[in-house]
């Protein structure tokens, strides 16, 4: 018998090395070029980084849900982006109502907490319904089947919201107290961005403590380790799965409100791309790993914000691109996806490493 069939490994490895070096080479060359041009001052770079941090925090919160569900069910919950959207959307109505009553600006903290609550409740509700109807009956099916059901659920939710609330967008009311910026250590940061970053960190900590310190959290970790053994140990697996979905969804709902604070338009399709980016973030940080989700999210956010300018603008190709790549921000998603592919190829366990044993997916 032939030696295990992968006799071609050297060629593949060579190709992968070339790929790796190629991408890194392009990145370094571009960065060098941009920094050498010196068009941007240090302040501007810091601005970029801050934008990236706030965007990344939102990704991180959504990534939480992905990472927890994947850790237990080994399944990408495609509908998670829509869970995020539903929280943001429904909370809009609460926010608009509060704004109309003047409540939003009189008692911003309470009002915002109420809006957050509405969002989290909605998201959790929807996630649990989807789990019950679409995922639970398919738990034992071959891998492809729940994935497709997830895609179907994602579309269904999107277009349900489109049908209910229209194809246009709704604009979140502005909160007066959050207009403007704070200056920390000489760096200007928008108040909304600060709230988002702080909120994300707080939620992350809360979740981390929940998973590490409480009984339910331990049960969750047990189930993600080995579902059957956990069941044998007397853990109610169904209940744990429901709780996982619920907690992840609540985080996504909160992310929805925070997102809406910074980008005040909500519409039915808003969850799709953030969902994919959040999954990228989860993988980047290490799937199944909660601090990993945070790290991955922040990393991705900064990459997206700084990347196009840093890598592409200085990428001068004599004769074709004398002044670097034009309109680099159009390629922002390309950068994100290339990064995703690189991570998936070269370090599928992510930055902080996969917390669980590498079970063949």
């Amino acid at each position, binding site marked *: 018998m032939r030696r295990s069939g992968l006799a071609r490994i050297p060629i593949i490895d060579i190709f992968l090395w070339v790929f790796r070096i190629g991408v890194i080479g392009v990145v370094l060359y571009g960065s060098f070029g941009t920094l050498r041009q010196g068009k941007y001052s240090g302040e501007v770079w810091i601005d970029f980084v801050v934008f990236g941090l706030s965007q990344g925090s939102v990704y991180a919160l959504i990534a939480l849900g992905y990472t927890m569900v994947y850790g237990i069910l080994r399944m990408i919950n495609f509908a998670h982006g829509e869970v995020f959207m539903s929280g943001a959307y429904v909370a809009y109505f609460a926010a608009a109502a509060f704004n109309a009553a003047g409540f939003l600006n009189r008692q911003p903290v309470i009002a915002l907490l109420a809006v957050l609550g509405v969002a989290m409740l909605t998201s959790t509700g929807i996630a649990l319904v989807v789990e019950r109807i679409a995922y639970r009956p398919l738990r034992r099916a071959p891998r492809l089947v729940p994935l497709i059901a997830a895609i179907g659920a994602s579309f269904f939710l999107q277009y349900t919201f489109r049908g209910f609330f229209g194809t246009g967008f709704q604009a979140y009311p502005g909160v007066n107290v959050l207009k403007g910026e704070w200056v920390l250590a000489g760096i200007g940061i928008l108040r909304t961005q600060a709230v988002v970053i702080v909120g994300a960190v707080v939620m992350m900590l809360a979740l981390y403590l929940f998973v590490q310190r409480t009984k339910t959290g331990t049960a969750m970790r047990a189930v993600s380790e080995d579902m059957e053994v956990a069941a044998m140990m007397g853990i109610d697996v169904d209940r744990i799965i429901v709780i996982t979905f619920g907690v992840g969804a609540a985080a996504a709902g909160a992310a929805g409100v925070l997102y809406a604070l910074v*980008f005040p338009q909500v519409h039915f399709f808003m969850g799709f791309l953030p969902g994919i980016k959040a999954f990228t973030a989860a993988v980047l940080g290490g799937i199944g790993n909660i601090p990993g989700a945070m790290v991955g999210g922040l990393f991705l956010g900064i990459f997206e914000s700084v990347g196009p300018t840093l890598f592409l603008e200085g990428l001068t190709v004599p004769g074709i691109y004398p002044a670097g790549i034009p309109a680099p921000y159009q390629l*922002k998603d390309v950068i994100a996806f290339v990064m995703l592919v690189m991570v998936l190829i070269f370090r599928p366990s992510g930055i902080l490493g996969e917390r669980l044993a590498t079970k063949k997916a």
Partner: protein
Amino acid sequence: MRHVRLLVALFVALLLAGGSYFVPSAPAAQTMGPVTDAIGVVKINKGQPITIAYWLVIAGPDATLGVDSRRGIEIAIDDAKGTLVGHPIRLIGEDSACNAEGGTTAATKLAANKAIVAAIGSSCSSEARPGAPILWKAGIVTVSPSNTAPVLTAPDRGPDYGGYMRTAHNDQVQGKVAAEFATRVLKVKKAATIHDGSPYAEGLANVFADVFTRLNGAGSVTSREAISPTDTDMRPVLTKIAAAKPELIYFPVFIAAGGFIARQAKEVSGLGAAVKLMSADGTFSPDFVKAAGDSVVGMYNSSPDLSPQALGPGYTVFLNKHKKKYGGNPLSAFHPHAYDAANLIFAAIRKVAKKDAQGNTYIGRQALRDALFATKGFKGLTGTLTCNQYGDCADPKIAVYQHTTADVTKWNPGTSPKKIYP
């Protein structure tokens, strides 16, 4: 079994060869009743309705554009009392989805219907590219109320577009007006453009950049950026633009992206309050005021001139009819163009239709097309329309407006936003 296979193959080959001959050929010279025409004649029996079709975007996120145009057509039909050369007018139509495939499908569906005399559409330029030749191959002439891409009426557009004309302005004009406004009125020397990857926005941004460079010298356009229409975080792009210190940012995009740009431009430290923002008719809608919030105040928009000064009292009459029939103000900016398109068609039909002794009506397709293209000095709602040989009929009146308030309920083109140029 081999024999059967051979037989089948033979049969298939025969059918293939014969099948293509069965395909109905394109309309050819025809004589029907009192009319002889080079590409075909439509016969409408006495008492039967005369069919006019539309292919517009009436569903989906851009539906306001198409629905707005359709309402213009409907009001034109009302004004003609629903009758044309003695027949009731029947309006049918298809949704064209604002993309090439949708345009193809809608046009094909209409082209298959031999009863259609003329068509109004499309809404988006990307639909017209494949769609107009399909309609013209079936002999159906089409007048577009809102296509603005220059290439559709360019001299080198080819005979496939022989049946296409439009009452909307050409984007060459809009971009030029915007650039001239920026240079002469705002006295801006450096500008940046952002487009969103759609043919409309990119075309417009390019025209603006070209004219602006011509007026202000090389390098006056500091950056030509692009985003995706679904992007939400514009700050990095804006920060990048800010580094070159432009005085004006021209972003002829659509409402969602435009809203984000307007809002975030104020937040980006490099730009500050001094930078002027300008967009085009893609964002000329109350929804944009909703999206942009307070930052819309002071912003400029170019758009077809819908002010009473430009369009005359006829437009006010139209608006009243619109309010009565649909319970509100128009949704977009091209309803008067659609109204004019419909009336152009009606006038041409009245000119070329012939009746026979029994009262049936005959309309020659080539004759109709020629009559439409021969339109001169037609007094329409949007101005005096004269069609050139390539189908540009518009009397383009582009105005620049400035937003004065962020209150959506006060939306009233002309006053709020206020028309400030010309």
